[in-house]
């Protein structure tokens, strides 16, 4: 397994190098001068020129890239052009918020989706299955921003039960932290629930058709045991793969949810930085997101043998 991890990490390096080039070229291909944003509406030719020099934008692009890579290899992702905050510091603080919300939401989504999917598969084509799938399709068709706005409207404005804006870390105040987390977490749960449930249902249907399940039933085992002990492990493996992909994508930032609930997460940091042409932050965040994606999926791969002993790493 250790060899697998090392190999996987080594394979990550060329991916990140290629990605760094693509990210660097892409952000610089987008029209818009960061110096203009830095100087603001006081810009005159002299101020703009000074700002460009101070940002290193007067250097050839190739030189800029190698300077950036040199600093990255030393662990320095640079400094935000707009706020002067070190990029690594910004990523760490923003990722903590995103990770907290996403991990709770994914856990809840799995806790609901797995039994729902298995139950729907078990009751395939019956009213229970149709009801669950109708509900899931309904959730799937709701855009995340609209879901967020509706939750704010109902629970924040009409009922006045939950806050509409702001964020409190759980480590700072558990009670208030939960209060501020409910709406964003519920929004993400709704978004991901349908995908996970459908996957769990499909894989369970397939597993329930296998001969070893027929054999288990023939032995006279109760259905709950057949489902939990025999069907679950094999049926869950594809859902686990999907979970990895979803988690990687969500940890990369749920910009819409973070914007709707004014959460200082990494998705909002990325979007704001793109709008402000804050090259250092955009580059740093995208590299970090790529790394997260690779890491999460590697962890999922490592978990595979737990559910499917046929898989050897």
């Amino acid at each position, binding site marked *: 397994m250790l060899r697998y991890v090392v190999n996987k990490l080594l394979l990550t390096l060329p991916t990140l190098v290629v990605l760094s080039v693509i990210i660097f070229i892409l952000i610089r291909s*987008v*029209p*818009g*001068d960061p110096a*203009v*944003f*830095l*100087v*603001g*509406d*006081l*810009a*005159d*030719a*002299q*101020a*703009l020129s*000074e700002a460009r020099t*101070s940002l290193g934008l007067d250097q050839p692009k190739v030189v800029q890239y190698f300077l950036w890579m040199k600093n990255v290899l030393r662990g320095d992702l640079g400094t935000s052009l*707009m*706020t*002067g*905050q070190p990029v690594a510091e*910004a990523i760490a*603080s*923003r990722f903590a918020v995103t990770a907290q919300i996403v991990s709770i939401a994914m856990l809840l989504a799995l806790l609901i989706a797995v039994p729902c999917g298995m139950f729907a598969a078990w009751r395939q084509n019956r009213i229970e299955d149709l009801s669950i799938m109708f509900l899931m399709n309904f959730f799937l068709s709701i855009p995340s921003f609209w879901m967020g*706005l509706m939750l*704010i*409207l109902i629970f*924040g*404005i009409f009922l*006045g*039960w*939950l*806050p*509409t*804006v*702001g*964020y409190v870390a759980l480590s700072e105040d558990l*009670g*208030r932290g*939960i*209060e501020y987390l*409910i709406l964003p977490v519920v929004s993400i749960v709704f978004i991901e629930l349908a995908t996970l449930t459908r996957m769990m249902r499909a894989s369970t249907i397939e597993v329930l058709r296998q001969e070893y399940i027929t054999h288990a039933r023939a032995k006279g085992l109760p259905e709950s045991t057949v489902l939990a002990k025999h069907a679950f492990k094999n049926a869950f493996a594809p859902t686990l793969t999907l979970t990895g992909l979803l988690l990687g994508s969500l940890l990369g930032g749920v910009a819409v949810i973070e*914007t*709707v*609930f*004014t959460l*200082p997460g990494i998705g*909002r*940091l990325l979007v*704001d930085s793109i*709008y*402000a*042409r804050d090259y250092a932050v955009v580059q740093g965040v995208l590299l970090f997101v790529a790394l997260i994606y690779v890491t999460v999926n590697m962890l999922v791969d490592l978990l595979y043998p737990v559910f499917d002993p046929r898989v050897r790493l």
Partner: protein
Amino acid sequence: MPRLPCPLALLMVLICVNTHADDDHPDMLRSVIHGDIRGLDPGVTRDGDTDTIHHHIYESLVAYDENLVVRPMLADHYTMSPDGKRYTFALRKNVSFHNGERLTADIVTWNWQRMLDPATGWRCRSWYNGTNPQGVHVTAIRAPDPHTVVFELQQSSSVFLDRMANVQCFTAILHPDSIAGDGTFQLPIGTGPYRLSEWRRGEFIELKKHPAYAARPEPMSGFAGRKQAKVSTLRFMIIPDPAIADAALLSGDIDILPRMQLHLVREFERYPEIHTVAAEQLYWNVLLIQSNDPMLRDINMRRAIAHAISIEQVAAITSFNRATSNPSAVPTVSRFHNQKHQQGYAYDPDLARQYLRKAGYAGQPVKLQTNRKYVFMFDAAIAIQAMLVDSGINARLEVLDWATQLSNYYEGKFQLATFGYSGRTHPAINYSTILGDKDNNPAYQWQNEEALDLLQRADRSLSEELQTQLFNQVHELMIADVPILGLSNELEVDAVRSRVSGYRPWSIGRPRLWGVSLKAADH
């Protein structure tokens, strides 16, 4: 007895307790800023929202009052020598910084030397070091005694004090401990009525009352006068999305929503716990016309465009019938604005067609750049495109993101563009933003030597009457040249919850939360 699962019980308790209401913040005033601040070093890292925070923490020697007249702030009073080349500021003796230390003349001179040092990166150095033909040249700054500061100028200037009081180029006086040994900014130590308590990036900026603040005796007016901190804590919530800011105001999670969406004003006025307050702004909405463009270089073409557009209708459409048009760079609230500045171009599609014929226009497409970030720019572009098409001009919209449009503005890469200039307090500063050598700086919209000469005469004149005449002439020249089409000054409407008392917007636009108090919670 059945027991609820623990997480469910916790959730229900939280829902029933409803701890987020106003009752939870009896002495905290919560306002909105639409983006995170750029930093805490005034005039170095800034934008509009950043200015708002800075003006609560720092003060300068002079400041604008409500009528855009420069008043003393940290200065007790000031005098000007008869030739206009020397300004003497007598400092107030009871002013203390947030760290408890007293304001002295040496600290003021240290601040000015720092501002004018290229290493600081202060954005408006060219206003004072003689490199900008429309700026001044400060030749010396002296502190003859601990309470007096003297500025020597190479030439007299009518706008020296106006520039000093400028909101964007804040000449804030910081305590030297704000700056680290290596010259970098480290701590915001000012003399303002509030001091920084906490800045959570992407979340909020919290300010606490400066307990030793010595307010001026005059009534509060603009950024001048009595700045009394009536609530102990101010929290500026960072809410980029306007719809979420609306929701937060309705739910009571914020108290003040500056610059609300104008189409929602009527709807908000239906809520008894919310009222709206409005003020006409210095912000100038315009249509930029690129006179360096091969097609638009022809003045007949520019005149055709000007006569094809009803600026009254554009102002009405973009402001929901709340703002009036203004063809002049001199804002309607300025004391320099008079009838002469209301003279623009008559809306006359037939005349526009005549000018098109003179220009030999054959239906070539004309691109009109706009963006969706600023609603009024987009709405104005839609209205203008329709009017241009109606007069036979093949105008096509080009919707860009704001960063791209702004870069195009600075590089002169556009034919037409809807745009806005943030509030400049003096006509000389307004005109100096648009008037200059376009070859050296494409951000200048208008190149006219005669107008430039008039502007420089106005800069040097100490007579307000003469300045008014000169600005009238500059406006006439601008109308003749058609380098830019003035549309209107923006109207700002702020929504305020009923527990807030004493808040009102003003023409400069940056919210002022001193002098504002809170009544009992309205939940």
